[in-house]
């Protein structure tokens, strides 16, 4: 075991994993964390805690992850390279592991101009692949990045990263995944999948290189709430592809939200059948209360207890 987290145990035993996502509050209101955590409890193996997602200032992912641990849940702490240089990154990893955080997702982060502090200076001292390499160095070599300097104590982290099979250039996406694996990533969560054909094509490229045996891939899904949301995402969010037939299906449905959940469940069932997909990552944005229903309908419950 690299970190001994619940997520690592589930994946290493070949159990189909389920992760959820929790966006920290735009302030210090702990009750928001508690409410969202309660909605996810029992339905997922670990919960991603976003790090100022879309560059909107929120409670720090370390603090929120620590609160989740106190509430008896397992966090996947997200960390972006947008806001921290390598000094802050390594210091935060010391702190996070001291607080009992065992999973970490290494990200570059959304550009700061998308958020509410557009005049800030972005950092990007490292990119996400260099961040993976940094965490692996700390864990496996027991030293700081680029140095011989020994770390006091042991860094035990199950290292994750994101990958987007829907970004361009498409053929580069697998090269990038291979680089992440070489840098030391243990698991991958993908961008939300609607274009199943393209995802399958990507997975085939992954298998052709044998990468699926060297990393756990968790397929990302996001239930669509309405036709408007589907249209908005398809048009405005770079790196997300929603095929027209899916938009049509949600737009034409009598109850779009119900249809969205149904579609999401169908997608999970299809994803389960793809060789090399070891779990799903459910990103129910401000719709956390549906995760129970989705996992139930997809036959993913009860979540196993592993020791």
């Amino acid at each position, binding site marked *: 075991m690299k970190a001994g987290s619940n997520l690592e145990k589930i994946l290493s035993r070949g159990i189909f994993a389920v992760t959820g996502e929790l966006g920290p509050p735009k302030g210090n209101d702990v009750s928001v964390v508690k409410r969202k955590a309660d909605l996810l409890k029992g339905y997922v193996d670990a919960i991603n805690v976003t790090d100022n997602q879309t560059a909107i200032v929120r409670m720090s992912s370390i603090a929120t992850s620590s609160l989740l641990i106190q509430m008896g849940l397992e966090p996947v702490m997200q960390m972006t390279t947008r806001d921290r240089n390598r000094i802050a990154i390594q210091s935060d990893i010391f702190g996070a592991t001291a607080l009992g955080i065992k999973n970490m997702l290494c990200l570059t982060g959304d550009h700061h101009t998308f958020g509410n502090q557009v005049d800030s200076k972005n950092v990007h001292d490292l990119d996400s692949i260099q961040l993976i390499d940094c965490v692996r160095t700390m864990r496996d070599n027991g030293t700081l990045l680029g140095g011989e300097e020994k770390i006091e104590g042991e860094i035990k982290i199950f290292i994750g990263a994101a990958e987007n099979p829907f*970004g361009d250039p498409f053929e580069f996406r697998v090269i990038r995944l291979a*680089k992440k694996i070489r*840098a030391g990533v243990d698991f991958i969560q993908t961008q939300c999948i609607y274009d199943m054909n393209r995802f399958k094509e990507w997975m085939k490229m992954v298998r052709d290189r044998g990468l699926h045996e060297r990393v756990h891939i968790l397929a990302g899904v996001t239930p669509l709430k309405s036709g408007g949301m589907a249209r908005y995402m398809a048009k405005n969010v770079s790196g997300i592809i929603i095929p027209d037939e899916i938009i049509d299906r949600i737009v034409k449905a009598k109850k779009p939200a119900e249809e969205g959940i149904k579609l999401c469940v169908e997608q999970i069932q299809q994803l389960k059948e793809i060789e090399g997909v070891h779990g799903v990552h459910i990103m129910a944005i401000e719709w956390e209360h549906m995760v129970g229903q989705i996992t139930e309908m997809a036959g993913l419950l009860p979540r196993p207890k592993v020791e």
Partner: protein
Amino acid sequence: MIKAEQKPMDEILGYIESYNKILLSGCGACVTVCHAGGEKEVELLSYSLKMARKKMGNPIEILEITPARQCEPEFALELKEMVQNVEAVLSIACGVGVQTLVRHYPNTPIFPGLNTTFLGETVIHGIWEERCQACGNCVLGKTGGICPISRCAKQLLNGPCGGSSNGKCEIKKEADCAWQLIYDRMKNLKQLHKLEEIIPAKRWGIESRDSGLRRIVREDLKV
């Protein structure tokens, strides 16, 4: 070359508000090429300022000069006589030129009339685009000759982020994704395998722009 753009008129007028006689100095090098601070722009700005001040009922006298390169001591010294006859200098050279004048004329207020924007290339006449951030340890040899430091909004060294869509950057839709360009070029050169190599964390702090004042010394040239 260095690219620059004229500052807003109100800002410039603000700097020279309390003076009745100034020198407007352009530069015959980079900023002439990007039509921000050459001889032509000196005259245009001079007329604009004179007209604006006249309208305010507070006319100003403006001397004009455009040295070949404001950032070189010998050219900066050409201004000496004129500087002695004015209350302040407005420079429409890049930030380097402004500071060269500051070094040589310690007793005269010197103001910038341009915002120095980037090191760039002429895409076509009238369009200039950033190509280099003078990071000090060039990565072009590893990235197919296309610079992700200046052309990627996140300065990614190991491939595109998820926001690369149809060849464009999600931050600025008119901008090409640097990594799409790198990928296309390497594919064209049949060198895609070179992109599999992980480029390690960049040495920003010792070899690059965060190392403090950078200085080049060539002993052989100092004689």
